[in-house]
């Protein structure tokens, strides 16, 4: 799956003096408040972090409230889906008009009927709704199937993805993985060429999050931590 990356970050978090009694807790709280939110500096949604406090000493900012700057080094797991990336998610709801998917357990995605290729037809058999391929009988998408789809857009406030099942190499990943050769003949010009070796590694439908591709180095400068307010998870 694309869109996941691990980054090394050098962070500076500014803490209110009242937090000086328990600095590590304050830092963890601050970083915790960034989870599952889109962060512009990282250009992605923070999913997980592993932090090391670099120095016991911290610089004090002069001012009305003498905040002090804690320097950190962190490993960040980021999720930043961009258009034309291939993402995988589990189907939660299926109807003639749309397929609703959840990606990585927290991000909702929708593929509307206009973005489903003609090959996949909606069927309602015995109250079970599904999309079945006209040309490949085994290729079926039901509630609970994990599908791979193309990202069309990403709403970074709600973390909502609109996707497309138009390209030939999208659909149920179980079927896709088994039929790699057939797909490779299809036109791939719609997508940018990227590393496809991960396709072959996929064996387990549920094992999405563990597969990440890029490893970026981000050196994040001054990150103003908003520690004056209580963290939202009160």
């Amino acid at each position: 799956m694309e869109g996941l990356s691990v980054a090394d970050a050098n962070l500076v978090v500014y803490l209110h003096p009242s937090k000086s009694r328990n600095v590590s807790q304050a830092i963890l709280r601050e970083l915790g408040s960034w989870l599952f939110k889109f962060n512009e500096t990282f250009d992605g949604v923070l999913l997980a972090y592993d932090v090391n406090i670099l120095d016991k000493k911290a610089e004090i900012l002069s001012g009305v409230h003498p905040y002090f700057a804690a320097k950190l080094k962190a490993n960040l797991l980021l999720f930043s889906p961009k258009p034309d990336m291939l993402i995988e998610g589990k189907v939660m709801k299926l109807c003639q008009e749309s397929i609703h998917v959840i990606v990585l357990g927290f991000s909702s995605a929708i593929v509307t009927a206009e973005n489903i290729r003609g090959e996949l037809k909606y069927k309602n058999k015995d109250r079970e709704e599904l999309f079945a391929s006209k040309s490949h009988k085994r290729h079926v998408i039901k509630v609970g199937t994990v599908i791979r789809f193309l990202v069309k857009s990403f709403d970074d406030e709600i973390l909502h993805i609109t996707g497309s099942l138009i390209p030939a190499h999208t659909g149920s990943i179980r079927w896709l993985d088994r039929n790699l050769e057939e797909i490779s003949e299809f036109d791939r010009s719609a997508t940018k060429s990227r590393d496809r070796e991960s396709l072959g590694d996929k064996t387990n439908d549920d094992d999405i999050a563990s597969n990440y591709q890029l490893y970026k180095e981000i050196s994040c400068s001054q990150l103003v931590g908003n520690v004056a307010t209580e963290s939202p998870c009160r």
Partner: protein
Amino acid sequence: MEARVNCSFLLKSETYTFIHPAAAKRLQLQFNSLAKTLSLPSVQIKQGKRMGLELPKYPEIEEDNVLNFTDSELVSHVKNALTSVLSGDQNSYNQLVGVMHHSKHLAPDEVALLETTLKALAGAVSSIDVTHHDSLLSAIFSMSMWNYGPHVADALAELIVSLAISNGKYLDLCLRMLVSNFTPPPYFLDKLKLPRGLERKGQVLCRVHAAFKKIADYVPLAPLRLLTIVLQGMPTIYHKDRAIVIYVENMLKLESGEIGELVGSTMLMAVVDRLIELDVEIGWDAILQDDFSKGIFEMELEDMDDIEEESAEPDVGEFRLSRKSLVGNSIAELLDNLLVLTFEHLESCEREGRLAKVFETLLQSFQITVLSAYKSKFAQFVIFYACALDPENCGMRFATVLVELFVQYSQPQPTRMSAVAYLASYLSRAKFLSASFICSMLKRLVDWCLEYCETHDGDVNPNAHRVFYSGCQAIMYVLCFRMKAFVNVPRLKLQLIMPLEQVLKHKLNPLKVCLPSVVEEFLRQAKAASLFTVSETFIFDGLLESELSRAFGGLERLDTFFPFDPCLLKRCDSFIRPMFVFWSMVKPTYDDDDDDGSSDDELVQDLPNENEDMMNGIDMDEFDCQLQKMSITPKSTSSHKFGGRFQEQARMPSRIRPSTSPESL
């Protein structure tokens, strides 16, 4: 919707339809009027299970074809209406919007039309564009489920859910619309108490909360956004209508609902915050009585019926009951209702076995909000009730947390003093705590005070040793209530009484500094129980408080703060009463009559308010007279005790009489 009859309809032969019979009738009328203009034969409604319009025979059509409007037909019609706006043709779209706006006094076929339209829209959400269809969207979001019956409400909920999950842009708007359905429209508020109103309420709320769950299933982060929206939408306390009561009911329902794990604790804390806000709005003067000079006659509020009756009698009439002053106070009534809602919610939590977890949130909320609020009057009964529902876990945990707060030097002074005041009042008033537990808590306090004495070698100095004096006062206060139970246990004497004696006899002299009414009662009981001998005689002359006690209490008068004094809110009190220790129920050690059944009816009289002494510039002082809880027996000879007629009586009559303890508020 006034569907344009499209020739393609005539050729379809799908098998099902969801047209309501009334809608079919309407469509028949429309079709026939159109058919007339086209000089076509009219149609009849086919009776039977499948509602359809039977067409007259046309050459192109098979004989047994029946025209049914299928779901997909209507959906595609709506889609066409929506997309045609983009190309400039607004007619069908405007008709759609018209149907949505038409909401009052609907005839059955109009209801059916609305339901059909909503269902079709739910299928066509992907065609709704936020800019081009803003009038439709605003019409949808301004609809209130309270105005409609169950079918339309279902269809509306379905539409909202579909909208919310289809596009991130609509999520907040949809959640906001659902939250606005927490409260009924103004005209409905009065009907809430009627059976019809209750039925509608149950119907709407269950659909609203089910919609939240559905949205959360497909958009996992929706509860997070819902949190902010619910908190923002809370009616302020200045909305004098009952909207906040039903809103809080919804918040508590969210807490116990299916997304409760995600939003529950924030909801509870917000509710407690709102309770404190209301509490603070009730000024102490609202609870105070008019006639100070005659002495305040405050009831222990043991017999509610008696209170109502007695107020009619002339001899009691001259005294105004403090609770009566609250009657008609709308904020007090509101607070009362909200507290009762919270109590009922706690009861349901306890039944579901979740109370321990909910209690942790309450405890956190208590420390952040209630403890730091200046002399909260009633909001703290929430945690009292929670403790009462589960004495072994919650009850003991509350006391332990308070003790921890008291002994920690790192906590600010007012917090520590406030914590020990809460602890003292709690240990005295909680009927459900075991004597051994109370003893162990007291032991901790005594040990702390002893250690303090040993490390501090000073003279009487109320300001410097505020926390110490408040600790001592707490111990004495609890012993006034519980001494009789402890006296007979020899082990307690060693562990508790001897260290206490050392503390009381120390140079710091807490007996001189602490609240005189408390000290006096304590010494009287201690003497009767022969706990220890006090060398110095303390003559307080029935003073409620002294210069020294005022000094240690500080500006906030934490020396006279007894938070769990009887609750003055009527409905609340009926919940709290069974688990509450009233002073009149306490048998002090100097009362030796064991053999009467009506020992509960002991006459107790309290010090009246010494208002003359206490009036000074600070407003609070006036009310703080009320805060004296200690009741003393009539044998005390203070001349300024009121209530001469009660002096004569040796004991209270079997019918419980009001005690005279100026219960604090």
